[in-house]
């Protein structure tokens, strides 16, 4: 799709126009000063949530927009990390270090995603999408039914908040909205930059070639199964990171993180923002979370809107909000 003029380096600052640099500076400045702009703590929580879901939606974009694989239950891998962090902090060591639980959560996601991915990448297209549903439902069922460990429907509540610290330097616990916002912002920004670097590297080009034509990719010597598995693992790792952040921010976790409706919601954020852009899903997440916050206070029948918007998006706006940038950008060489 937008693989024209592929830059040589990931950090291609000199190639950016003045306007783009200005935009990035304003965006960064806005994100950093946000806790002081938003007086209301509720909105700061919402902003943190947007960053977390934006990261999850971006991870789905790696799978959907770059590798061309569809996962309906990507939230399951968010749930694994969220529950691992929650269970460890609640039952094993409430005073555990933030980095230890963080790594444990991501490690658990990777461990579970690897064998599942190994089975899934042997198929493509439809079968892959159907399998993500089946395995996602399997993970969801296990979490939901293992009442003795996960608390079933009620989930885990009252999870302790570890210190956000790096060496001698400490910011405070994750219970403080400011601390947790900055922590999330830094983690999400690092993930975004690394993923972007990876996606515009030759590796990203290989993934895109699989998306465009699997058969031809294999003819030129690309090991399609292996690269699909790489794409899958990157997507699941990023989703695991967002899941770990989720528990640390909320101090609680329930099966609704990984239920089928959440899976659809994540897909909608990604589509709404625009696939194949990496930044689009963050905008999608922002619009979605604000809309959900607004609509769900009006009606409990939120699913009708979710389904209807998905249908309308596919029919009339397949490139999402990011598509507007292409349509309305003047004088940009594309």
């Amino acid at each position, binding site marked *: 799709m937008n693989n024209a003029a592929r830059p040589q380096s990931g950090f291609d600052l000199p190639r950016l126009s003045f306007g783009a640099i200005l935009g990035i500076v304003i965006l960064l400045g806005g994100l950093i000063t946000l806790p002081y702009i938003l007086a209301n703590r509720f909105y700061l929580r919402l902003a943190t949530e947007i960053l977390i879901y934006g990261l999850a939606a971006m991870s789905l974009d790696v799978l959907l927009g770059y590798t061309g694989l*569809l996962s309906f239950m990507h939230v399951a891998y968010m749930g694994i990390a969220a529950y691992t962090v929650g269970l460890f902090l609640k039952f094993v060591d409430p005073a555990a270090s933030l980095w230890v639980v963080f790594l444990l959560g991501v490690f658990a996601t990777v461990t579970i995603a690897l064998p599942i991915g190994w089975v899934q990448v042997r*198929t493509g297209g439809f079968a892959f999408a159907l399998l993500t549903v*089946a*395995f996602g439902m399997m993970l969801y069922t296990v979490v939901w039914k293992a009442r003795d460990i996960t608390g079933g429907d009620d989930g885990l509540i009252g999870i302790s908040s570890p210190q956000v610290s790096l060496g001698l330097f400490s910011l405070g616990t994750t219970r403080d909205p400011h601390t947790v916002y900055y922590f999330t912002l830094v983690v999400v920004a690092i993930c975004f930059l690394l993923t972007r670097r990876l996606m515009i590297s030759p590796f990203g080009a290989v993934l895109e070639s699989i998306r465009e034509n699997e058969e031809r990719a294999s003819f030129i010597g690309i090991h399609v199964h292996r690269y699909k598995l790489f794409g899958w693992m990157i997507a699941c790792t990023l989703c695991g990171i967002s899941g770990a952040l989720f528990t640390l921010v909320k101090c609680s976790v329930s099966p609704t993180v990984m239920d089928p409706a959440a899976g659809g919601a994540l*897909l909608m954020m990604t589509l709404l923002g625009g696939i194949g852009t990496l930044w689009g899903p963050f905008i999608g997440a922002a619009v979605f979370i604000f809309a959900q916050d607004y609509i769900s206070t009006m009606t409990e029948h*939120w699913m009708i809107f*979710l389904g209807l918007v998905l249908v309308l998006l*596919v029919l009339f706006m397949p490139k999402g909000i990011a598509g507007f940038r292409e349509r309305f950008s003047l004088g940009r060489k594309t």
Partner: protein
Amino acid sequence: MPSDVTFWVQTLINCLGLGGLLLLIAIGLNIIYGINRVINLAHGALYALGAYFGYMLVERGLPFLAALLIAPLLVVAAGLILERLTIAPIRKRPMLYTLILTYGLSVFLEGMAKYIWGVQPRFIATPPYLSQTIHLAGIPYPFYRFFLLMVTAVVMLGLMFLLNRTKLGMTMRAASQIPEMVSVLGINMNLVQIIVFGLGCALAGIGGVIAGPLLTVYPMMGSEMLLSCFVVLVIGGLGSLRGAAIAAMLVGFVQTLGYIFITDYAMVVVYVMMAIILSLMPRGILGEGKFE
């Protein structure tokens, strides 16, 4: 306390019943995929719609058998409207979009079902001659389960007759192989696709009405059925009718036995079985699957 033999005979018939029901729904999905090249994720929602239509008709005082005929027709009407409005316009786009679109449709329909009929389960009342208990070799058995098996068998025989013995069936089989060639021969492929989609909806509708009295009618029934049907399609090989028949029975047995012996984790066993079969036989148990 029922004796062991009674329990096992009843379980066997339950397994067959679920297998037959799965086959009805999965075959519909399968022929729509085979000819229209669309995986209709709203198929489960159409099955649920069939059950709700059946419930409404019986509630209005229609005999159950009449509902069994009329409700599927209503499902066909609803399905075709959705197909013409949403699925047909994006036929030329990559398949990912159809998947997302039909997924959106299923979420929408499920939400509507919750909105109109609420989350509490509904019951389709069956006439006395269907709800009696019959004795076979001294083993008591609810007659409705036999009725379900009979309906499934009749529908499947009818479908086989249609596919193997009629001009339309021949066209459909040809279209599943090379649609362009069928089109070149002067057959209106668009019409064939509409008929096939309608046929799939009718099968889902019949499945919904006969499942209603047995499994009760609730909004989530569609997505639950759809998940089991995925397993059937993946195990049997997408697009393979014989594979689907074998896989439906296999899943019917594993799922029913799973619910009896391990209850909560029954579906986990079904998914694990699917994963094992898929990793050993990526094209389904008969190797006939057409994955794209």
